[in-house]
C-alpha cells in the first residue's frame, strides 16, 4: 500500500460519520435509476451492509477513543452542524443499520409476492431514504437536524406502509401521516422554544446553556412538547393508535424493518433530550416526568399485551405486543436510575432483534399461506417446522425465558424497580410478561395441535433466503441472552454516562 492510498483510507474513515448519512441518501437516487428489481436490491444490499460495517467501526472507535465529534463542512460547532457519536447513539446506530441490513437480505421473495416488480426499485429507494433519516436522527448533534431527518424517515415510511397489498394500507398510512406530522410538529415546537431560550441548536451546547438558564416556564413547555412529540413517534400508550394499523397493513418486510428501528430511534431521541439536554434533575425533579411516564408505561404493558391476546391476525397481535414492549422501555426510562435506564436501553437492543425476527416469521408465513390469520397457522408446526421453531424461540424470548435476551431486559427492569423501592411495579412487570406467554402460546397451540383443513394448499418450508436472516435474528436472541457483554455493557455504560455516574 502506498502512502497516498493509506492517506486516502484514513481520510475516508475519518469521514465515516458523514458517509453514514450521505451514502444511503445518494444511493437511494441510484436505486431509482437502476430500475431493475434485483439490481436495485443489490445496490441497497451493498449500502445497507456497508452502513452496518461502518457502524461497527464507529462503535469500536467510540469504545477505544471516546466520543467522536465531526464538524460538517469543517464549520466548527456550536455554529456549524455537528455529528456527534457517543456510547448511546453508537449502540442505536448499530441496531438500526444491523436490522436494516438483515431485513433487507430477506426482502426479495417477500416483495415479489406483495409488490409489483416495476415498483421494486422505488421500494428500495424509499427503504434507503428511511434508513438515511433514521441514521441521521441517531448520529446528529444538532437539534434541528433531528427534526429534518425525522421528516425524511417519516415521509419515506408513510410511502413504504402505503405499498401494502390491501386498501387498508392506504388509510393506515394516512393515519400514521396525520399522527406523525402532529408528533413532528410538537418536536419542532419544543426545539424552537429551547432555541428561544438558549440561542443554540447544538445539543451539547443547549445542555450547557440550559443549565445556566435554569428551569423556567418556556423550558418546561419545551420539554412537554418534545415528550408528546416523541411519544407519538414512539407509540407510547395512549398515543399508539397509529401503530397497530400501520404494522398490520404494511408489507411484511416493512413491518419487520420499522418495528425494529423507527420506534427505537424515537426512544433514543426521547432519552437524548430528557437526559442529555434537559438533564435528570430538571426532567424528574422539576417536571416529574416519572409521574407521567410510569403509569403510562404500566398501562401500555398491560393494555398492549391484553389486547394482543384477543387478536385473530397474528401480525396485528405482534403489533400490539410492540405497544406493550415499548411500555417496558419507557418504564426503564421513568426509573431514572442506572439499572432502570440500562434495562430500557438494553430492551431497545433486545426488542429490536426479537421483534424483527418474529415479523420475518410473519413474512414467511404470509409468503406460503397468503395470510397471517390464526387459522393459517394450523398445522404449520409440521409443514414449516424451521419457520415455526424460529417463532417458538423468539416467542420464548418475548416471554423472558432465561438465556434469551428477553430475560436480560426483564432482569434489569425488575432490578431497577426494586432498587427504587417500587416493588409493586416489579410485580406488575412480571405479571405482564405472563400475558406474553398467553398470546404466544395461542399461536403455538394452533401451529402444533390443530390439523390443517382438508382444502389447505400444499406448502413447503419458506425459502432459504428468508430462513437464514430469520434465524440470524433468532440466533442473536439466544446469543445475546448468554453473552451480554456487548448489549448490557454498552447500555449500562451509556446509562451511567447519561446520569453522570462514575464508571
Amino acid at each position, binding site marked *: 500500500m502506498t502512502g497516498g492510498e493509506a492517506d486516502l483510507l484514513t481520510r475516508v474513515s475519518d469521514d465515516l460519520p458523514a458517509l453514514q448519512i450521505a451514502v444511503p441518501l445518494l444511493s437511494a437516487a441510484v436505486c431509482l435509476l437502476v430500475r431493475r428489481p434485483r439490481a436495485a436490491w443489490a445496490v441497497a444490499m451493498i449500502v445497507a451492509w456497508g452502513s452496518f460495517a461502518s457502524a461497527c467501526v464507529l462503535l469500536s472507535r467510540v469504545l477505544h477513543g471516546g466520543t467522536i465529534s465531526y464538524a460538517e463542512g469543517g464549520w466548527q460547532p456550536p455554529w456549524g452542524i455537528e455529528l456527534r457519536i457517543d456510547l448511546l447513539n453508537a449502540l442505536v446506530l448499530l441496531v438500526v443499520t444491523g436490522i436494516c441490513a438483515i431485513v433487507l437480505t430477506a426482502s426479495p421473495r417477500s416483495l415479489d409476492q406483495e409488490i409489483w416488480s416495476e415498483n421494486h426499485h422505488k421500494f428500495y429507494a424509499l427503504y434507503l431514504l428511511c434508513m438515511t433519516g433514521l441514521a441521521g436522527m441517531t448520529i446528529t448533534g444538532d437539534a434541528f437536524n433531528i427534526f429534518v431527518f425525522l421528516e425524511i424517515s417519516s415521509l419515506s415510511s408513510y410511502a413504504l406502509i402505503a405499498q401494502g397489498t390491501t386498501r387498508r394500507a392506504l388509510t393506515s398510512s394516512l393515519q400514521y401521516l396525520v399522527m406523525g406530522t402532529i408528533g413532528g410538529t410538537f418536536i419542532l415546537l419544543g426545539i424552537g422554544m429551547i432555541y428561544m431560550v438558549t440561542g443554540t441548536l447544538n445539543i451539547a451546547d443547549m445542555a450547557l446553556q440550559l443549565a445556566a438558564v435554569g428551569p423556567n416556564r418556556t423550558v418546561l413547555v419545551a420539554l412537554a412538547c418534545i415528550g408528546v412529540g416523541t411519544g407519538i413517534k414512539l407509540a407510547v400508550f395512549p398515543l399508539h393508535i397509529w401503530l397497530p394499523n400501520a404494522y398490520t397493513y404494511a408489507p411484511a418486510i416493512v413491518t419487520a424493518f420499522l418495528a425494529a428501528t423507527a420506534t427505537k430511534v424515537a426512544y433514543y431521541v426521547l432519552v437524548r433530550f430528557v437526559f442529555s439536554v434537559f438533564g435528570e434533575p430538571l426532567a424528574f425533579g422539576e417536571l416529574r416526568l416519572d409521574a407521567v411516564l410510569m403509569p403510562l408505561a404500566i398501562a401500555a404493558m398491560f393494555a398492549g399485551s391484553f389486547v394482543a391476546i384477543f387478536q385473530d391476525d397474528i401480525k396485528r397481535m405482534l403489533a400490539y405486543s410492540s405497544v406493550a414492549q415499548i411500555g417496558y422501555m419507557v418504564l426503564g426510562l421513568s426509573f431514572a436510575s442506572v439499572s432502570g435506564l440500562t434495562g430500557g436501553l438494553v430492551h431497545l437492543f433486545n426488542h429490536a432483534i426479537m421483534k424483527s425476527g418474529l415479523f420475518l416469521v410473519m413474512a414467511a408465513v404470509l409468503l406460503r399461506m397468503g395470510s397471517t390469520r390464526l387459522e393459517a397457522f394450523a398445522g404449520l408446526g409440521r409443514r414449516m417446522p424451521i419457520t415455526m421453531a424460529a417463532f417458538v424461540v423468539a416467542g420464548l424470548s418475548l416471554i423472558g*425465558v*432465561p438465556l434469551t435476551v428477553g430475560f*436480560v431486559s*426483564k432482569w434489569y427492569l425488575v*432490578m431497577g424497580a426494586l432498587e427504587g423501592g417500587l416493588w409493586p411495579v416489579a*410485580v406488575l412487570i412480571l405479571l405482564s410478561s*405472563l400475558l406474553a406467554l398467553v398470546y404466544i402460546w395461542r399461536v403455538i397451540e394452533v401451529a402444533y395441535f390443530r390439523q390443517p383443513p382438508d382444502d389447505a394448499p400444499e406448502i413447503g418450508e419458506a425459502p432459504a433466503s428468508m430462513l437464514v436472516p430469520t434465524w440470524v435474528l433468532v440466533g442473536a436472541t439466544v446469543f445475546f441472552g448468554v453473552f451480554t457483554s456487548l448489549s448490557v455493557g454498552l447500555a449500562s455504560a451509556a446509562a451511567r454516562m447519561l446520569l453522570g455516574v462514575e464508571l
Partner: protein
Amino acid sequence: MTVETAVGLAVVWPLLGIPLILLVRRWPNLREAASLVTATSLFAMVTKVILPAVMAGGRPRLDIVEVLPGLQLAFEVEPLGMLFSMVASGLWIVTTLYAIGYMRGHHEENQTRFYVWFALAISGAVGVAFAANVFTLFVFYEAITLSTYPLVTHHGTEAAKKAGRVYLGILMGTSVGLLLFAMVWTYLAAGTTEFQTGGILAGKVGGWQLMVLLALYAFGTGKAALMPFHRWLPAAMVAPTPVSALLHAVAVVKAGVFTVLKVLVYVFGIDLLASTDASRWLTWAAAFTILAASIIALTKDNLKARLAYSTVSQLSYIVLGGALATYAGVLGGGMHIAMHAMGKITLFFCAGAILVGAHKTEISDMDGLGKRMPFTFGAFLLGSLSVIGLPPMGGSWSKWYLMLGALEAEQMFMMAVLMASSLLSIGYLMPVVARGFFRDAPLEHEHEHESDREGSGIREAPLLCVLPPVLTGIGCVVLFFFAEDLYLLLAGMLMP
C-alpha cells in the same frame, strides 16, 4: 477425564444422545438402544467419576459463562445434588426399558419425538441438580418445564392440550411471577445468588421480609406442588405412563422439592431459619398439603390420579423436612427424595402395566386382577409399603428422620401429621392391592371363547412392562439396607 469435565459433560450428555436417537429413528430397536446407552453411560459417569469426589468431601465446580455481572452460569456438585442426579439418571435407565415395553405395547405414536424430549428433560434435571447458584438452577428449571410440555401433550388431543395449558400456566406462572422475583431480591440483598454452606442471607434480610422471601421461593417453585399450586401435577397425568413415572414422580417434581430444600439450606441457611422461626409457617403449609392431598387421593378412583395426589402429599414431606430447619429434618427430606422416587416410580410402572396388560385405569375395575398379574401387583405392594413407610422398605428411613426432625424442632403436631399421613396412605394404596389379590374377578360376559379358556392363568403385560416395576420394587427393599450410605453422603450438606 477430570471431575470438573465430567460435571459439565453429565449435563449435556443426554443432549449428545439426541442426534444418535434421530440418526437411527427408522430402526426402533436401535433407537431405544441409543437411549439406553446414553442413560447407562450417564449413570456410570455420575456414580463412577463424580460420586467418589463428592464423597471425599470435594465440591467439583465448573464455570461456564458470566451472563450478567455477578450472575454466573456455573455448576457445583454438593451432596444433595449428587443424590438427585443419581436418582434421575439411574431411574432413567429403568424407565427407558419400561418405555420400550409400554410405548410399543400401547401402540403410541411419534415415539422418536418422545425419546428426544425425554432426553432433554433429563438434561434439565441434571442441570438443576448440579446448579451452583439460583440463576443456573432457574435456567434449567425452566428448561425442564418447556421440554416436558411436549411430553405432557404427547397425544395431541383436546384433553392433552387443555392439560398442557394448566401445566405450563401454573409452572411458568409461579416461576416467572414469584421465583424470578425472589431471585432478583436475593441478588440485590446478598449481591450474589451462589449456593453457600450456611446460606447467604444472614444479616442481609430480616424480620417479616425473610418470611415473604421464603414464601416467594416456596410457592414460586411450582414443581414442588405445594397447595394451592398443585393442580398441574394431576393434569400432567394425561401423558403416557413412562412420563408420569419418571418425570412426574421423579425428575420434575423432585427438581421442585430439591429446589426448595436447596434454597432453604444454601440460601437461607438452617441456622438463620431456626433462629428466626421464619420457616415455621411453611411447616404448616406443608402439613396442610400432606393431609389435604392424602384425603383427595382417597376419593380418586382413577389409579394414576390417586397416585398423583399421593405424590403431591409426599412432596410436602420433603418441604416439611427442610422447613423444620433441623439437622435430622433436612437429612430426612433429602433422603426422601431417593426413597419416594423409588417407591412412586414402582407404583406408576404398575399402573402403566395394568393399562397395557388389562386395559384398566379405574381402581374399581381391578377386582381379582392380582391373580392374573401377580408380578405387577406384587411390585405394587412393595412400592406401596415403601411409600407408607414400613420396614424393611427404604421409605421407613426417611420417615424416621423426618420424625426425628420434628422432635428436634419440638413440633409434636408435625409428628402427628406424619403419622396420620401414613395411615391415610395405607387407606389409599392398600385397597388397590387388596382388590387385586382378594376379590374375585367379575364375570366377563363380553369375553367369549379364548379369554374364558385362559381366564384363570397368568396374563401379564409384556416383559419389559413388568420387569422394571419388579426391579424398582426390589430396589425399595435394597435401599433399606443402604440408608447409612445415603446418610453419610447427605451429612456433608450441613458440614462446612
